[in-house]
């Protein structure tokens, strides 16, 4: 009697549903993307630049006297090479009591979060059952399923 089963229910069971952890991972990735400087690779990455070669307009004599005195950009990069996390750790040791970087952060809002359709940007009342993205209408849900839903799950 398998033929009498509902196709809709059968299809729904086959669908992959993202669990809470995966959804949070996605949200965190989206936030990190907002902080990124570039989304593409350095267009000059494959070039080998030779800084040592003197250019025509360089004045050889003045260049030489300066070089002995100045340390150049490389020196400072090497000396103060620290990433943000390291600096934050260091700051916690220096300034353990507020006010410091962490205490200055604005607390969470008391107002409820608003939701917008991920496709068209209007106010959204519905959530995609598979991935948790918000949408506003059947039309937008269709676009979402065709383009984004579970398409780049990493």
């Amino acid at each position, binding site marked *: 009697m398998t033929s009498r089963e509902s196709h809709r229910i059968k299809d729904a069971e086959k669908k992959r549903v993202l669990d809470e952890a995966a959804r949070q991972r996605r949200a965190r990735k989206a936030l990190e993307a907002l902080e990124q400087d570039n*989304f593409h690779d350095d*267009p000059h990455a494959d070039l080998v630049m030779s800084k040592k070669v003197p250019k025509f307009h360089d004045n050889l004599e003045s260049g030489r006297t300066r070089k002995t005195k100045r340390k*150049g*950009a*490389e020196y400072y990069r090497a000396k103060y090479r620290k990433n943000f996390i390291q600096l934050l750790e260091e700051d916690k040791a220096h300034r353990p009591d507020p006010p410091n970087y962490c205490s200055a952060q*604005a607390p969470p809002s008391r107002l409820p979060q608003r939701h*917008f359709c991920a496709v068209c940007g209007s106010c959204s009342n519905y959530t995609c059952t598979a991935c948790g993205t918000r949408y506003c209408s059947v039309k937008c849900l269709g676009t979402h399923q065709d383009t984004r839903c579970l398409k780049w799950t990493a």
Partner: protein
Amino acid sequence: MNNICILDNGAYTAKVGLASQEAPQLIPNCIMKAKSERRRAFIGDQIKECRDASGLFYLLPFQRGYLLNWDTQKTVWDHIFSPDCCGINLSEKTLIITEPHFNFHSIQEALTEIFFEEYECDALFRTTAADLSALHHLKSNTVPADCCIIVDMGYSFTHIVPYVKGEKIKNAIRRIDVGGKVLTNHLKEIISYRHLNMMDESYVVNQIKEDVCFVSSDFQRDMKTQKLRYPENTIIQEYVLPDFTTVNRGYVKKPEGPAPEQQTIKLNNERFTVPELLFNPSDVGIQQMGVSEAIMNALDSCPPPVHHVLLENIVVTGGCALIPGMGERLQTELRALAPDDMEVKVIITEDPVAFPWQGGRVLCQSTDFSEMILTREEYEEEGVGASIEKFDP
């Protein structure tokens, strides 16, 4: 005045000039690489020599608002202080430089070392842009007040800093991790999904943001308007993208004119939902208060007798203050949140980007300025630690 240089070292633009000048020079604080020009990179304002700015790759000295990439920064500063740019020779000059709030110690040490050792400054004064803005606001003759709230909407984040009797209330400083960078990146993502893939085009999208974005004065009303069809929909705009052969900078197309040859995109609700992040960071999942709510939160940490003075002196500075409608929206939201027996006055300064720099000029004129600076003798005596003792006791 001729021997004092002011450098408001922002994460996106550096504002630099001598105290004797009327206005600072604005220089992009970054190195840019173009696809079309493979022989060189563009440092700071050299970008105006670049004819094809598509797919521009950025090297920024600042990460999350703090100076981390020293080689990039050093290269940009070398350019700024070279005769090709503004030609200020820092040796035997006093330098006023700005840093972010709660700057990290090792960054402060590096700053001190670079300016004394490399640029051979005579003396150094390290401060924050908000301090300079507050000084500028409080010392300008039209406002007889000694308290104010500075709202600094920068590139990396937004800070709310209250000053009472000229003193900063450190406990009341609030930071919202939304600034111009987040807005540009958010707009870039929206355009790339809805219209054309522009993920590589930070430079162009930043210009789109500057040209079309506005702060909605009534969000629900505008949300309804954007659903209508064209003549009733007063929000939708067509934007002509630059192709870097005939059009070098994009512009908003007039509704009636003929279709241009260049690619266009239609911008509708993105025009106001993007700057909306400053008022509701939770729209993209940043669990922090919006600007108005955070201002009231900061106010709670200030002594109650001065609340009414603070609310009458809210000064907005930084690049995001240039978004049209910012003042009106802040005014209405704060009016709704503040106690009804108190006046609320939001001031968007005439030039919000250069306002702190102008504050630097005010600082030079104060009588005890010569005692506040860190001199070369003090530096040579005590080393880099002296700057931390002097400026962050």
